């Protein structure tokens, strides 16, 4: 440690709180003390450092956990909005599908088709002799279940004596 005294330069103007003119002025000495701690070596406290890091790590972990929780929560809310929006969209599409099916059914109304065929296309109803079918009957014939049913009924189930 060294101490040095230095003389400050005389000032031209009198300082505001300085001695009034005519009075003797004393030189001021300021001492500067140079402290050199370079030779000092701080002793590492491993235990404290570990505690510190642990605490810091825990804090970061808690912070991250809270962050994660918050993110998850807000993401959940955000996803909730999105899910609801998609649900609404799906419902709207399903409804549109129903509407289209209804429209299709309306357009396939036999009366409408008949009117269009007669008025717009000038078609007429075919007479039976104009309808010529080749090959196997069309599926519409499936409507007519076997006319043999009545006979089978009596044959299979035994001909019940008529009630009258």
């Amino acid at each position: 440690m060294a101490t040095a005294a230095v003389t400050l330069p005389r000032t031209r103007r009198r300082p505001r709180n300085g001695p009034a003119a005519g009075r003797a002025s004393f030189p001021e000495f300021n001492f500067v003390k140079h402290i050199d701690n370079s030779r000092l070596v701080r002793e590492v406290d491993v235990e404290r450092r570990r505690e510190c890091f642990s605490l810091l790590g825990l804090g970061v972990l808690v912070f991250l956990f809270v962050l994660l929780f918050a993110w998850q929560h807000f993401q959940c809310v955000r996803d909730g909005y999105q899910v609801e929006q998609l649900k609404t969209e799906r419902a709207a599409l399903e409804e549109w599908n129903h509407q289209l099916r209804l429209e299709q059914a309306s357009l396939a109304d036999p009366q409408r088709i008949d009117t269009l065929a007669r008025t717009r296309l000038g078609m007429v109803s075919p007479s039976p002799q104009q309808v010529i079918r080749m090959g196997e009957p069309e599926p519409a014939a499936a409507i007519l279940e076997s006319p043999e049913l009545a006979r089978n009924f009596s044959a299979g189930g035994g001909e019940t004596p008529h009630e009258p």
Partner: protein
Amino acid sequence: MVGVICLLWFGCIAARLYYFQVIKYVDLLGRAQRQQQRTIEVAPQRGAIYDRQMNPLAMSLSVESVYAVPSELTEPKMVATLFAPVLGLDANDLFGRFQGLRSFCWVKRKVTTEEAARVRNLNLKGIYFQHETKRFYPKGDLAAQAVGYVGLDDQGLGGIEYALDDEIKGKPGRVLLASDARHRTFHSSEWPGIPGKNVVLTLDEKIQYVAEKALSEAVANSHAASGVAIVQNPSTGEILALANEPTFDPNVFSASSAAARLDRAVGWVYEPGSTFKLVSMSAALEEDLTNPQEVINCQNGSIVVAGHTIRDHRPFGDLSVTEVMAKSSDVGAIKLGLRLGEDRQYRYIRSFGFGAKTGVELPGEERGLLKPPSRWSGISAGEISMGQEVGVTPLQMVTAFSAVANGGILFEPRIVHDIFLGAQHLALPPASGRRVISEHTAEMMRQILAAVVDYGTGKPAQLTGYTSAGKTGTAQKIDGSGTYSKSHYVASFIGFAPATRPAVTILVVIDSPVGAYYGTDVAAPVFRSIAEQTLGYLTVPQDNPSRWPQVVTSPPARAPSQKRGDFTGFLPSDRGLPGAATSPVQSASYSKGVSPGGLALDRPPEGGVASSIVVLGDGPLVTVPDFSGWAARRVAEECERLGLDLNVTGTGLAVEQNPVADMKVPSGTRVWVRMAR
């Protein structure tokens, strides 16, 4: 000091926190949930109704209803004034409702998309939307009485909608919605309801349309009060069409009258008249009290029963039993009825299903009117045998005729084909029936009824290409004074076709026609129209060559590539469309005579084809092969190869042809081939 202040501050906060989070927790949670969450009931999707080809006849769509919370309306008067023109409401009425209610008030239910958009654009506070379902009937008035209609709350009010309401309507679900301050939903929990089951009817919309159209024209032409037509499959009892006139549009059922909504097929009782002779004659034949050839003296059209004189519509002398039916002699029928006796006649009437509900799945079915023999008067047996003093429903009548058509089994009529939800199908009982007459009796009755059409009162019911059988009926109605009216009649025709192997039984009843009132004139032509179109649609093979039209080809012979034109010949030739050059009918009309250079040939009598002319044009001669036992495809290929024009009828293997095998004919000649089925 600062530390103490901080400690106090934290202590206050902690205390407040404890107060809110622990002490007031339940209360505040409830309040928050009430503000954020709301549970709404989701109306169940009502099941659709289809015809047997799965064409939708009724289906539901989601629509919006507008409601208000009057307490939230800042200016109810202004809101009512704004809504009135937008929704077509009365402003004063709406304002009155706002005043009378506080927490909930319907503004308008089931609004259209456009109306909902207009209301939404107004963006008014206190106005909300609620999703509901609305019933739509895409085919309008088609089968309206059978399908039915629903009320504002989707409850079935008529037809199948009413009869199967429990199956169709389903059960409502609930949705819990969590919304933020801006009413945006961010979470929802669903408790789905049970959607209604779908119903498939036995009706076929094409046959239904054919029946409705023919009936509507007949009712309009005869200026009748009403009419009903039923098409039934005699082999199963399934109803293929059920037409009523007048009818209504179930989409706007409130605009129709109760008379229009009445399903006359099951809810209307009428005196059947001569069509009821089917029962008395079947009974007499079954009991061996007569046979079709027995001659009955019809006493010049008059008979006295219990002091009452009953007259035929015109005097008849001796008639066979078949002729009694064909000429519709009341005297002959009464004599057969008297032979039966009261008890036996009554038992047969009950056995044919009269005086009891048929069990069809339609609401409002009537039993009809049938007194027990103990309450019969002396004249009753005679009157009932000719179709008076007895009340029946059209469905009972068509079912009785179906029993004769199918060989003697009375099937329970059915209109519900299937009930399903997804892949689950409800087990419906199979067609059930009971024998009412023997097969032999049924066969005799079929021949008798065929005679009615062949040369009796049912001539207008003769079909082109098909045999048919049936019975006309003209019954006087009872007027207000309780006596038979001289001006109001019920004209009917009930029959089946083809007569040999019936595919359909058809009933046509016209109530109170003006002018011509006989079933022969009013109802039989409707039967013909419905039968011809229905049989063609069902691809039933034609079985009556004697009524086939003249099959004629006109010279010059057409190239094979042009012959397909006949197969698409539904368009009138004046349209000038390719492929529609000449239809067989048009050919027949202008080639009836012998064309230049042509050769006229009569059809061979063994084919049963009388007075038909085939005109053959010039061209190289080819030998007609023997098509017996050939499939239609092979016949077509061979005719194509030889340059012959082909007219095939029926399906299966060839059993008959014209010209006959080995005959040399010019190329381009039309060859007619009948297949086995």
